[in-house]
């Protein structure tokens, strides 16, 4: 399969008054054409920073990509000039943000916001742009798109607005769509609808999707592959089935166990004890050591190398190291 995106050894740091935050510490990722990759992890694990890095939308000058490369269709986006990057944004790579209530400018009409990207990047006529906007609104399931174009964001509900945001992201027919927690701010029934919409759009347009989320339900529904992030690193990646049925990293296991299930016997949740590592001074070894029930001495001192469990399934954990003692489960 053709790889549309390859992230190699990405390091992103933020300078703050309190010191330097090492938000992303050596992320390796790839995305195949037409697939959906979910990046999961808790708040502060670096998943949003990773996705913003792809768009080169890290807030500067505080944030900086200090090392690594992001190859999109063979081109390293880290080295790309600002001007070239502007031509890529919205055209080749689009992004959807978390909160549809704030992602739209309250003072401009929906039609204006939908078409402005198109007008910026191609010399379409106003009539054609409008036509395209109507077509996009129809694609995302907004009824009566002709009259809706003249309306302002506050005249739409949250779910509708997210649909508009999605339409906006897709209007230039990008190859890659990055959705940063697209359903977090929506209520559950709308979440399901939006996720269905993502699938539908992917079927129709063949767009590759990176879905950043902390909602494993969302992941199970739409993702082909999953990358689990913790403490600025990707600690486990694999096909959806690998992650959900054969999780190997204690953190992934803990994450899956902390999701409430209808068939759960106990009436209490199983949270992962402890707090995420301090990324001002990230631990030398595996970032999960402090919270890990299986931690060994080596875990605290040296970060484990990647273990390849199958073609698709990789994990960074000492338990999977060839030298670790096997115990029959």
């Amino acid at each position, binding site marked *: 399969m053709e790889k549309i995106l390859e992230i190699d050894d990405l390091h992103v740091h933020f300078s703050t008054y309190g010191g330097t935050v090492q938000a992303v510490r050596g992320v390796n990722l790839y995305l195949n054409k037409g697939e959906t990759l979910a990046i999961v992890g808790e708040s502060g694990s670096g998943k949003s920073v990773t996705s913003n890095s792809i768009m080169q*939308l890290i807030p500067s000058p505080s944030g900086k990509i200090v090392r690594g490369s992001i190859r999109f269709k063979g081109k390293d986006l880290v080295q790309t000039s600002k001007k070239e990057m502007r031509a890529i944004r919205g055209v080749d790579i689009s992004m959807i943000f*978390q909160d549809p209530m704030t992602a739209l*400018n309250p003072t401009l009409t929906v039609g204006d916001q939908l078409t402005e990207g198109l007008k*910026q990047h191609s010399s379409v006529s106003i009539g054609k742009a409008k036509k395209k906007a109507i077509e996009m609104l129809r694609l995302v399931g907004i009824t009566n798109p002709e009259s809706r174009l003249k309306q302002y964001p506050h005249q739409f509900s949250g779910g509708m607005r997210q649909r508009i945001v999605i339409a906006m992201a897709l209007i230039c027919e990008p190859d890659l769509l990055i959705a940063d927690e697209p359903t977090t701010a929506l209520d559950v029934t709308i979440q399901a609808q939006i996720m269905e919409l993502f699938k539908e759009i992917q079927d129709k347009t063949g767009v590759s999707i990176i879905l950043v989320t902390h909602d494993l339900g969302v992941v199970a529904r739409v993702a082909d592959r999953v990358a689990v992030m913790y403490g600025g690193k990707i600690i486990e990646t694999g096909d959806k089935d690998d992650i959900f049925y054969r999780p190997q990293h204690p953190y992934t296991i803990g994450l899956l166990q902390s999701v409430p299930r209808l068939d759960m016997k106990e009436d209490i949740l199983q949270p992962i004890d402890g707090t995420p590592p301090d990324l001002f001074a990230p631990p030398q070894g595996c970032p999960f050591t402090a919270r890990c029930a299986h931690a060994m001495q080596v875990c605290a001192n040296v970060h484990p190398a990647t273990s390849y469990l199958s073609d698709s399934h990789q994990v960074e954990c000492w338990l999977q190291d060839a030298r670790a003692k096997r115990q029959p489960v």
Partner: protein
Amino acid sequence: MAIYLIRRFVIMIATIFVIATLTFILMHSIPGNPFTTQDRSTSEAVQENLNAHYHLDEPMIVQYGIWLKSLATFDFGPSIKQPTETVNDLLVRGFPISAELGMWTITIALISGITLGVLAALKHNGIIDYIAMTLAVLGISIPNFILATLLIQQLAVNLQLLPAATWSSPMHMIMPIIALATGPTAIIARLTRSSMLEVLTQDYIKTARAKGLSPAKIVIKHALRNALMPVVTILGTLVAAILTGTFVIERIFAIPGMGKYFVESINNRDYPVIMGTTVFYSAFLIFMLFLVDIVYSILDPRIKLHKKGGS
């Protein structure tokens, strides 16, 4: 919309009526009358004749009635101090000059204030930001009459670049406008900067960047319009401040605008002129506030002028 305008108009009239009444009460509660301040002593008979001529010997309530009638007919009668001129003459002569000064001031304050504020916000914590904000603090803290006298001393007296007073050519206009516009410019700059900084962190700015729009387009189309809301909000107050500022500035620069008549009329107890200018000023200010509301609703579609009637 029409209903809104009508309702708004009725409220304006009511406000002016209240102001007119309060002015009447205040004016007559100041001891003395137009003739007590005169140097030359007048005989009692003359005094009585004068009082009768200006209805000053009538009961208050009758005078109030006369005043309301003159207000309703827009005819404030002749000035007591300068009987050859009517109050309307003074207004017609003075207002265009004051309006010219005021409009230039507000235009320049808006343009330079917004520009400074935007630049400061874009170069947040940079050198431009520090310079702009230092200037803004200075601008806010120096009263316009101090600035006016300083300007006159430096530019007119020492350097002899500009004429020191009066209002006859563009050169004459420079100093009064600078003196009057500095304060508002500083206020607008600070306000624009802070609201711009806030707007620039909004998600829709991120969305706009993610669309690949040019920085200029992001700032002008997406950020500025939202950032200007607070500026428009204080515009009403600012117009009032500039208006009162014109009294002082017109006096310092000997500009024959309305402010001059306004201040003189109070000193002279020139009742018709006080009444005329006060009501005129209030009507003007009320109208400006109304305009601000209209502009507000144009800038922000979420604000509707008419309460009823949905989206």
